[in-house]
């Protein structure tokens, strides 16, 4: 199966390790991806706060681009960032359901030499790996299982809310199943899995935002997790990069490696650290991963 790959802005900067590791894992798992040419920002939450048409057209443009590249048949587009994943899905829904918006978008697209056929399905890597590749295949590929590694799987909000497309809204399991297949042990923390990490508030209203991230990390530590696994660049950024300021703010010696699930999976598949961007983390996972190799 061939997929169109929509990285989104973060995977080109703070989320670089996500992209590096994900593409490596895809290669191993035989998931063929081709980056969407000329893609643009999805608009995230900001655009929707400023202008609706702009937000929907901006996101929609990426869908139309994909359809231009592949004029025939259905298209599967992988969006690894939770925010992109939801925004693209929302744009699709809006354009198809809101009469005027839809008409306006169609009109503008056609004048820009594009048409929107609604043939794109937006997929999240977790969905693709579990449902297209399959856990059995993943197991086979994991030549260096994460034995004894205790992982707290953190899914974030926007892949299960408001639309629960491929996982349970209240107690998502795909990441747990994936990392269990990779030999890891995952913690039971239903009420944390999709609890808000603070989103952009961690930077803007840090007192409120960072508290939300802190709650998640603290709970992971209480459950004796060695590492938190994430599926979204913003979640990962919040849960890792702000640990320094959290230590001061909450007077806590908290130190919890927070990785992308793809980095752990890649590690289990025997892929070199460098290729997984593990050396680029602010909170080093070395100790945790050493432990599970021994």
């Amino acid at each position: 199966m061939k997929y169109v790959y929509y990285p989104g802005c973060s995977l080109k900067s703070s989320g670089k390790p996500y992209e590096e590791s994900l593409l490596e894992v895809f290669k191993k798992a035989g998931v063929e991806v081709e980056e969407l040419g000329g893609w643009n920002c999805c608009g995230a939450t900001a655009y929707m706060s400023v202008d609706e048409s702009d937000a929907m057209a901006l996101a929609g443009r990426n869908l139309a681009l994909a359809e231009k590249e592949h004029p025939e048949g259905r298209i599967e587009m992988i969006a690894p960032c939770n925010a992109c994943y939801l925004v693209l899905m929302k744009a699709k829904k809006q354009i198809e359901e809101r009469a005027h918006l839809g008409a306006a978008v169609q009109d503008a697209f056609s004048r820009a030499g594009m048409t929107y056929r609604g043939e794109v399905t937006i997929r999240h890597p977790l969905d693709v790996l579990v449902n297209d590749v399959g856990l059995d295949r993943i197991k086979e590929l994991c030549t260096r299982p994460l034995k004894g590694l205790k992982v707290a799987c953190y899914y974030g909000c926007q892949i299960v809310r408001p639309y629960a497309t491929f996982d349970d809204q209240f107690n998502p399991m795909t990441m747990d199943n994936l990392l269990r297949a990779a030999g890891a042990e995952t913690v039971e923390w239903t009420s944390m899995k999709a609890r808000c990490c603070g989103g952009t508030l961690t930077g803007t209203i840090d007192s409120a935002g960072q508290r939300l991230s802190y709650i998640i990390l603290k709970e992971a530590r209480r459950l004796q997790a060695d590492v938190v696994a994430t599926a979204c660049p913003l979640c990962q950024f919040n849960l890792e990069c702000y640990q320094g300021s959290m230590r001061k703010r909450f007077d806590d010696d908290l130190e919890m490696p927070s990785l992308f699930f793809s980095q752990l999976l890649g590690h289990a598949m025997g892929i070199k650290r460098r290729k997984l961007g593990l050396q680029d983390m602010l909170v080093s996972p070395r100790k945790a991963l050493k432990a599970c190799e021994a």
Partner: protein
Amino acid sequence: MSETATAPAATGAGTYEPRIVAFFCNWCTYTASDLAGVSRLTYAPNTRIIRFMCSGRIDPQFILTALRQGADGVLIGGCHPGDCHYSTGNYRALRRFKLLKKLLAQMGLEPERVRLEWIAASEGDRLQEVTNEMAEQLRRLGPPNLEAIPAPGPGEELPGEVQELEKTEA
């Protein structure tokens, strides 16, 4: 104003309001139409309802006559499959309806002009939906081509064919 599509509101006199003649069974759809009234659900203003005990009583000739007499469309309403007050009348209605659709096509009449719907006593809102939908559709079609409809009288092929169909019943 909201973008979400809303049912066509009854527009004032003057604009083309298609006439729908509705044949409803006493137990389900006629009761539903009363419920629509009690619930004050306004719908296509030119829907005119004729009551039968059962949709099984409806003779295809009634439908053709209605069209010939100036109805733009005919709506048949009966109980959901399995719910017929007389156990099987609605199935009979369905068989005749299917045949009639074929004939209409042969006559060069748009089959959308005749519609059959199962509407239960509790589904007043469904009635509103269906009639509004149908009115909208008929508005687009415009009045029917009356020449296409054969005049009544002896030697009509229709009842004969119905008869064949009825006979195929074991």
